[in-house]
């Protein structure tokens, strides 16, 4: 239906030429695919740091007792701030701001600061995912661990976290998909990644087809991962039902 409306629109021929030009697609695709490697490198690197930093934040937030109140507040403040700032702003601020300071010993690479911005934002989201996982583990599990003489840290490490992480793998993958798409934001800093490359190609050919090529590349990556996530969710549900 939608396809029919689009194809029969008055200006379809021109749009077709502008966005679905096979010749331009063929010409631009290799360079865009090459630039897409930068996106892949970026999200793979960032994801490693995100998973570690977020877990650290979530564990800080679950520390018991009044002694750790300051650490809990710190962790909460972190997630509040970095979830609240639009990613695009943080990419700008860090990508242009920090190298602009010309501090010695601080990396000036914009790729580096783009990665830092993504790590800061996504670790705030992912910390909340971990926290939800930790809180979903019934307190009786921690009580059983503590009753065996395990310390809080040990009961976290051996009993709570292994179950919590397993339970939140699907939402973690969701955030990972989000991260993959957001790597396009670093184009703002002039880092040549797929989206920036398609801008270049598009300007050279006076044609928008390169954007389509980029979109296609992202889809090739995100769709299989989305399907995999759905499969995991369905499997988890089956297991929960079988247990109940």
């Amino acid at each position, binding site marked *: 239906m939608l396809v029919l409306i689009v194809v029969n629109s008055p200006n379809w021929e021109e749009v077709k030429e502008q966005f679905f030009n096979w010749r331009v697609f063929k010409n631009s695709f290799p360079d865009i695919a090459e630039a897409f490697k930068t996106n892949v490198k970026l999200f793979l690197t960032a994801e490693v740091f995100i998973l570690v930093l977020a877990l650290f934040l979530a564990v800080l937030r679950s520390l018991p007792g009044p002694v750790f109140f300051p650490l809990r507040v710190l962790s909460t403040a972190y997630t509040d701030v970095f979830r609240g700032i639009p990613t695009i702003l943080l990419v700008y601020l860090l990508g242009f701001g920090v190298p602009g300071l010309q501090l010695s010993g601080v990396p000036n690479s914009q790729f580096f600061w783009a990665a830092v911005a993504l790590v800061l934002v996504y670790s705030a989201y992912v910390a909340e995912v971990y926290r939800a996982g930790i809180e979903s583990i019934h307190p009786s*599990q921690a*009580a059983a661990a*503590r*009753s065996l*003489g*395990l310390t809080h840290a040990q009961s976290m490490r051996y009993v709570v976290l292994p*179950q919590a992480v397993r339970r939140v793998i699907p939402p973690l993958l969701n955030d990972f998909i989000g991260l993959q798409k957001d790597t396009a934001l670093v184009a703002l800093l002039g880092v040549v990644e797929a989206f920036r490359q398609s801008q270049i190609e598009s300007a050279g050919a006076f044609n928008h087809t390169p954007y389509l090529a980029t979109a296609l590349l992202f889809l090739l990556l995100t769709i299989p991962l989305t399907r995999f996530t759905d499969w995991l969710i369905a499997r988890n549900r089956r297991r929960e039902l079988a247990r109940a």
Partner: protein
Amino acid sequence: MSGKPAVELEDVHKSFGRTDVLRGIDLAVAEHEVVCLIGASGSGKSTLLRCVNLLEPLDRGRILLDGEEITAGGVDVNRVRREIGIVFQSYNLFPHMSVLGNVTLGPRKALGLSRAAAEARADELFARFGLEDKRDAYPDSLSGGQQQRVAIVRALALRPRLMLLDEITSALDPELVAEVLNVVRELAKGGMTMLIATHEMAFARDIADRVCFLDEGVILEEGPPARIFSSPQEPRTQQFLARIVEAGRL
């Protein structure tokens, strides 16, 4: 009771918000003694056990283990808990670990035993309680009775000097109760000091050296099972036991 007390509770108070759950409990359990706590749901039996295992802080009073005040500030709660085993109504096995993993976790991480030593200790217990063939099974493939036996073995693996059993058969299908109770009988025969909260009156009468009737956070009446079950003195105890008899559970 003969022997020195293994555990002593003195004037123990505990409330949750405005609900006073324990309102002054005094109780001493001698070494090798088996004490059963009976009473209606909400009378404070579970809370009492959780307090002894330091899972709940007291509002008032103190608890001594072998004469040492374990509720004092600065006491290493992890060391105390290694001395006291507790088994819960809902088993609380770790679902992501095999039976062997469940049983060896405490000895390895809390006692610092090597894997081999912890496994040897576990295998000894599996043999004693007929769980050898479940060694590598995961909890969700076991029956409730088997899970509860594993939970008991998990607590025993730390070689505690006191066992707390918190209504360990309440969540079980009737036909699975006996296998779990037999484990407890075996423990009693071995001289284990136990404090048992239970609804199984016939079992309590059979196994207990002493029965305590808890009512609204105090021990209303205590004595040898023969006396408590056949000629209770307090009207509340009589009422409670009459209802149990009426339900055909005694």
